[in-house]
């Protein structure tokens, strides 16, 4: 499927340019910026994992940036359609993905899990299937939103009813096509059904819970505003308890304010650019 035309936020490009022109900036800084855009992150990982490079399965943005080089990243960002004007619904989806990435990072650090960056990346990409459905099947997407509204069901149910598949499957299918590592594919595929995740159940559980927490917080918009059911298996896998959850929520709410600030900033530079 063609992902060359997926839009990226113009604000990111301006910032990335400023960072690359400053010799004091580090790859980590750039990686942090790139990780705030699920589409750009997906494209970078896709390129880093393409067989023509021959790298062994790259799963973090900072590794991909070091392997590909900053100039490649810059041109990738630039080649996304800069003048694509953000519609309200895609800002919501972008915020939802970003929020889930933040939530996953908070969970992973609280629980001292290994591979925090991979987990955040998986959460950032968990709804990439929705971006694809939205961009490639615009009419279907509008129908989906109408169906969500009309029947008062979740986006997931609407997708299954209308398309016979769902964004988790579409996302996983794409990620597989892009040769992304399994530790990213599995959480994308299983974030609504943790029991089907066999090899990376902890990661899938974190993404599952991150999705739920962000939906509970009301940050961003992923197509519907219904909090999904917490799966007992995910809860057990993470050894979740009420006191841990309390700490998670407190930190997440705090972080989401910074995220909102970042989002406003990105949209602000959007307007001045166009």
């Amino acid at each position: 499927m063609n992902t060359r035309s997926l839009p990226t936020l113009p604000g990111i490009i301006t910032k990335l340019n400023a960072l690359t022109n400053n010799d004091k900036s580090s790859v980590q800084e750039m990686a942090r910026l790139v990780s705030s855009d699920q589409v750009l992150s997906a494209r970078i990982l896709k390129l880093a994992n393409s067989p023509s490079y021959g790298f062994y399965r790259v799963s973090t943005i900072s590794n991909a940036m070091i392997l590909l080089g900053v100039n490649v990243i810059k041109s990738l960002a630039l080649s996304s359609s800069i003048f694509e004007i953000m519609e309200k619904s895609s800002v919501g989806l972008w915020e939802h993905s970003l929020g889930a990435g933040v939530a996953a990072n908070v969970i992973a650090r609280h629980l001292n899990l290994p591979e925090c960056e991979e987990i955040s990346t998986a959460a950032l990409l968990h709804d990439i299937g929705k971006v694809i459905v939205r961009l490639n099947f615009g009419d279907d997407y509008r129908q989906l939103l109408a169906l969500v509204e009309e029947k008062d069901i979740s986006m997931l149910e609407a997708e299954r009813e209308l398309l016979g598949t769902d964004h988790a499957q579409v996302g996983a299918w794409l990620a597989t096509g892009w040769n992304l590592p399994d530790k990213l594919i599995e959480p994308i595929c299983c974030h609504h059904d943790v029991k089907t995740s066999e090899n990376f159940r902890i990661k899938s559980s974190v993404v599952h819970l991150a999705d739920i927490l962000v939906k509970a917080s009301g940050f961003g918009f992923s197509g519907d505003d219904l909090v999904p059911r917490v799966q007992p298996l995910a809860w057990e896998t993470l050894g979740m308890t009420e006191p841990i959850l309390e700490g998670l929520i407190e930190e997440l709410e705090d972080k989401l304010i910074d995220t909102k600030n970042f989002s406003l900033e990105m949209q602000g530079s959007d307007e001045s650019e166009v």
Partner: protein
Amino acid sequence: MQKIPLLQAGSGMVLARDIVRTENPNGPPICGKGVALTDSLIERLKRMEVTTVTVEGRPVFVEGDKSPEEILTCFDKRFKKVEDDPLTSKLKKVYRNYLVKALGE
């Protein structure tokens, strides 16, 4: 007390917490609590890459223009499909308690 994005801060708001540098949170504060913000001060903070400030009261309604009651009503609505689920209800209870506490301050 409310933590808000700097972009939503306005002159006249009073700092409820010290502002510290993002890259050195344990270092000396850039601006102490009790200080009233001015446009030029906000501009300078922006240049210092400060992204959020904590101010007295609740001057900004981040989620549209919702009152605390409305925020809680919307919060409850998001859970309407999963009321019967024990684990999700547990999560809701913890989250709601946090919100009530945060909004009450």
